[in-house]
């Protein structure tokens, strides 16, 4: 019988600390939701969270909940509930599974933290920099909870993020302060915003350093690790815990680098992942690649929570710049340049494009990009079909064959 190789992945010790901070974060939200002694803002994952923190809001991120629904594989069962009330199966499956979760009062927070339901919001805040779905998603909850919905409408797909765009976005963020004063009952305090920005910046720089360690051979961290360990960069940025956590993680990974310890045993192929993770298949994919001695070590996705432009001395403009410079907001021309840089920086042997059925915004393979990049760089690529949360969109066997055949191709052409 041909042998299935047992993959060896290394456990990251800092995970325990991350779990502790994440648990504290969710319990704090749950307590506030019950006691109503602190205001809660829901915010899109690359929305102006720093501004919300400066008003004293606890910030909850529905996309993070969406990812949890995906990773626990309950999303697929919940999506049909949203479909049945008119939310198409073709739109964001974070949105549909999250609404399905709300409709059935079924949240992974219960099993993970003993929390019965998601925290009740006082305000919903979106930024359309990533997609329109987030606005419609929040609009559903605004209707359900009868709370205000405010947001930033960012111009999408610019090649250059020019001053006109930045000024418009900065003004919109600043303009929200008026409503947030009213909702929070607190006056806007520029010093508080500066302090939050400084913490967010620190978090960003540390997270960036963590991810950049993957440039070493062997890489001490994989994309699959990254999707888990980016949690604090998404939900705790702007707080001290995020900074503390990434300092610990960074130290551990630097030690790995010093000892030449890789995220997988015997790394032979270095792979870039473009697009969303398939949350319900993280373990399976991580094992599959590790078994092929392929380390998926860099991605656009994990890098999406690096906001290098943050500058506490100019919070609104720098926030506008950082949240608009992001990969997902940009034109294909800008995205191509970005990926080409990543290929070089991380010595990439091959790219996997995940064409997520329900998220065109993160699937950068629909307008000819893979072929253009392949022709220019000579680095081969493959597109796999799937979805972030809707497992009905996935043919595991076909993806497996595609991935194995791709690694064989890289091997044969060496």
């Amino acid at each position, binding site marked *: 019988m*041909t042998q299935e190789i047992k993959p060896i992945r290394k456990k990251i010790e800092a995970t325990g600390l991350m779990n502790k901070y994440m648990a504290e974060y969710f319990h704090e939200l749950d307590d506030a939701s019950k006691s109503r002694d602190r205001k809660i803002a829901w915010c899109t994952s690359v929305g102006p969270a720093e501004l919300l923190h400066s008003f004293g809001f606890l910030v909850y991120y529905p996309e993070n909940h969406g990812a949890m629904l995906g990773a626990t594989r309950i999303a697929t069962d919940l999506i049909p509930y949203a479909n049945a009330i008119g939310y198409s199966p073709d739109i964001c499956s974070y949105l549909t599974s999250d609404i399905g979760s709300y409709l059935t009062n079924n949240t992974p927070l219960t099993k993970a933290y003993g929390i019965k339901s998601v925290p009740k919001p006082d305000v919903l805040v979106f930024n359309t920099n990533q997609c329109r779905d987030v606005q419609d998603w929040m609009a559903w909850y605004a209707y359900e909870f009868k709370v205000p919905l405010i947001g930033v409408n960012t111009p999408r797909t610019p090649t250059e993020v020019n001053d006109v765009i930045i000024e418009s976005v900065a003004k919109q963020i600043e303009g929200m302060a008026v409503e947030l004063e009213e909702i929070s009952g607190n006056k806007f305090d520029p010093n508080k915003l500066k302090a939050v920005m400084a913490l967010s910046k620190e978090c960003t720089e540390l997270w960036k350093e963590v991810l950049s360690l993957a440039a070493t051979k062997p890489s001490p961290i994989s994309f699959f690790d990254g999707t888990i360990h980016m949690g604090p960069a998404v939900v705790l940025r702007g707080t001290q815990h995020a900074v503390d956590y990434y300092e610990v993680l960074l130290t551990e990974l630097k030690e790995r680098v010093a000892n030449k310890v890789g995220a997988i045993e015997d790394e032979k192929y270095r792979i870039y992942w473009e697009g969303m993770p398939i949350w319900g298949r993280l373990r399976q994919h991580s094992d599959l690649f590790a078994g092929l001695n392929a380390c998926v070590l860099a991605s656009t996705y994990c890098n999406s929570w690096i906001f290098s432009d943050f500058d506490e001395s100019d919070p609104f403009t720098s926030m506008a710049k950082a949240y608009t410079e992001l990969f997902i907001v940009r034109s294909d021309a800008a995205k191509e340049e970005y990926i080409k840089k990543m290929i070089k920086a991380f010595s990439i042997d091959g790219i996997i494009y995940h064409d997520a059925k329900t998220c065109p915004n993160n699937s950068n393979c629909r307008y000819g990009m893979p072929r253009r990049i392949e022709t220019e760089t000579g680095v*081969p690529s493959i*597109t796999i*079909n799937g979805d972030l949360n809707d497992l009905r969109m*996935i043919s595991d066997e*076909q993806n497996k*064959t595609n991935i194995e055949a791709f690694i064989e191709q890289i091997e044969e*052409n060496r």
Partner: protein
Amino acid sequence: MRNKLAERIIFAGVDVGASRTKAAIIDSDKNILGWNVRKSGTNFTLSSNLCLAEALSMAHADKSEIRIAYSTGYGRKNVTFAAGSRTEIGCHAKGCYHYFPIAMTIIDIGGQDNKIIKVDENGKRTNFKMNRKCAAGTGAFLEEMCLRLDVGLEDMNGLAADAEGIIKLGSYCTVFSATEVLENIRNGKPLADLMKGIFYSVIKRVLEMDSLTDKVLMTGGVVAYNPYLVKMTEELIQSEILVPKLPQLTGALGAALFALESRQQ
């Protein structure tokens, strides 16, 4: 005679597809000594054993003579006698390059999936694509249509080739296509024209998967039994298409060649 044969060194490749299992036996000079094709059924281990036994019998060889066997295809991990396995993508490429050592685009139409594989002049794979989740355009699509039309699989080619016209189908979806076909039958449209339209639909699904570069080669069970489909494709792309001698066997042959190479390494 038997003793002399027993000294031979032979290599085996088995391609366990979702629909058919194929086996090829080669000698160290890469000559095909025996082969077999049979239904995969639900027990892949059993069908690979039976398929190998038939191929060995055709080669007048004994299992003990096999130096190394490799498996490929959907059920490749179920082949108990294989020392190693490769994906069907790699094996088709290798098998095709064995017949035609040139730069080419291979179109493989299988039972449940289609592949387009590009190989350079040195036999290296440069690119490949498989059909997306859906089975439109695969052998499964043809089987479903035959079932709906009450036409035997072996009669498809003759019908399509004799058609005077063509009735094209509009839908991607196998189920909707079947409805469309039945509607045409109800309206008294000729069966042959419909069959040609069904072939056309298969070709269109395949051609939209990728661009074709260099020489085009077609393989797979559908091609093996339906030469008219190849002719229609040639007309559509306006270029001659190469078809290996045993188009259904290129995957199994490729696996056998990988087995041979593994010994040489």
